[in-house]
């Protein structure tokens, strides 16, 4: 090997070492820049995939469309009315909570977003959505659907954001089991089996916790935590008493392999 090649190896290894010492914020900036570069291709690819998938399936007659439109308008009116009524009740509830010196329940602003890419990595469970800091998204904001919790935001680009899914081992959520006083921490597992919709573990329960299959698990809303309380996480499938504590195996409420549209909780209004 000649001197030139040795020198070049030293330069390349030096660059690698320099990059490895970069702080997390700088790494996220680099990733956000790369996401921005890929974003137009992701959007086009997703649009093409949708077009291909909807050929034939989306074709409807004018009569069918008219009927569907009437039904949707009616449903929209019902939902608007219910929403207004609930807002009144919410205001009343907060007034009563204030009167009882309770902390006021905050109302969150939801930002709709669409999944434009799924992570191609083998060991991490993430997706990319079509909203970024230009829409008000920040790191560590909860992501959900109308059914339940999906995950949280990690790297935020201008018009795209990486979302860490609930099924990832590094996504941890404080949780409580419906109908009990049991609380624990939900996390995904390192290598998810493909036979199911995903598996979650609820750890640090008491050893003899009265937990039964099909009980629902909600986020507990830890102080200064990422996730607000009361969001459905999943359903208990099995309870395993261990030497020091108990562990519940959960099935996620949301099928994370099939979701296309999500909401990001932006914060208190």
């Amino acid at each position: 090997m000649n001197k030139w090649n040795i020198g070049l190896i030293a330069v390349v290894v030096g660059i690698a070492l320099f990059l490895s010492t970069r702080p997390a914020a700088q790494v996220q900036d680099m990733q956000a820049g790369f996401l921005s570069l890929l974003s137009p291709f992701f959007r086009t690819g997703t649009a093409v995939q949708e077009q291909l998938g909807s050929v034939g399936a989306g074709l409807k007659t004018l009569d069918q469309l008219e009927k569907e439109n009437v039904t949707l308008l009616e449903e929209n009116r019902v939902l608007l009315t219910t929403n207004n009524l609930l807002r009144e009740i919410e205001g009343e509830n907060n007034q009563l909570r204030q009167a009882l010196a309770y902390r006021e329940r905050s109302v969150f602003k939801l930002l709709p977003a669409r999944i434009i890419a799924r992570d191609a990595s083998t060991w991490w469970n993430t997706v990319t959505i079509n909203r970024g800091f230009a829409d008000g998204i920040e790191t560590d904001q909860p992501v959900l659907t109308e059914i339940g919790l999906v995950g949280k935001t990690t790297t935020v680009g201008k018009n795209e954001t990486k979302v860490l899914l609930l099924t990832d081992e590094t996504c941890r959520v404080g949780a409580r089991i419906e109908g009990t006083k049991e609380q624990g921490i939900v996390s995904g597992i390192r290598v998810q089996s493909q036979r199911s919709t995903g598996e979650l573990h609820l750890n640090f329960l008491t050893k003899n916790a009265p937990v039964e299959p099909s009980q629902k698990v909600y986020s507990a809303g830890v102080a200064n935590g990422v996730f607000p309380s009361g969001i459905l996480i999943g359903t208990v499938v099995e309870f395993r008493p261990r030497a020091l504590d108990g562990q519940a195996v959960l099935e996620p409420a949301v099928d994370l392999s099939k979701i296309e549209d999500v909401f990001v909780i932006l914060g208190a209004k």
Partner: protein
Amino acid sequence: MKNTIGLAIFCVVLFVLLLMQSFIPPIRFLEGARLLLVPALFCYAALTLPYPAMLAAALVTGFLCDVAYVHVVGGQVEIAVGWSIIYFVILGSIASGFRPEMSRGRWWPVIPLSIVGTSCFLLLQFVMISVRREGFFFSPETAWRILVPGLLAGPFAMLVHFVVSFFNQLFWPRATQRHSAAARSY
């Protein structure tokens, strides 16, 4: 000049493959294993490009792989950016040892190199994650996800070779004829 064009084409194809991988879903009947095409492409480049160009390819491949898949949670980077560059420099240096075979028209080294290179890349990632998360466990799914992408990378590398040979013949027919004659005489 030809090497510079080769390196530029490699960078474009690498970018396209990184994009393509995002649209290829995991293979459910193979325990969710994924098609990982980048190491196989790099192995082919390392077998055909001269050493300095291979180092440039390793730098680009490693950096793009790391930036595309880096996992940052709670203000911490799980696997440091830059490790892939070192991995690809090592893999490329091993592959460069087989360049004389490649120049004689024997392209078989690309298959075992792609298989081993892809699986080792995933195995190293898994080991680093396990060290970081302070807990080792190995399940049959883990083995599938490490071995299957490697086995799929072998045929992909062959495909890359045939596509490159086809275009070589199309754009540089004389060079290809000289190359074939050299291979026969050997």
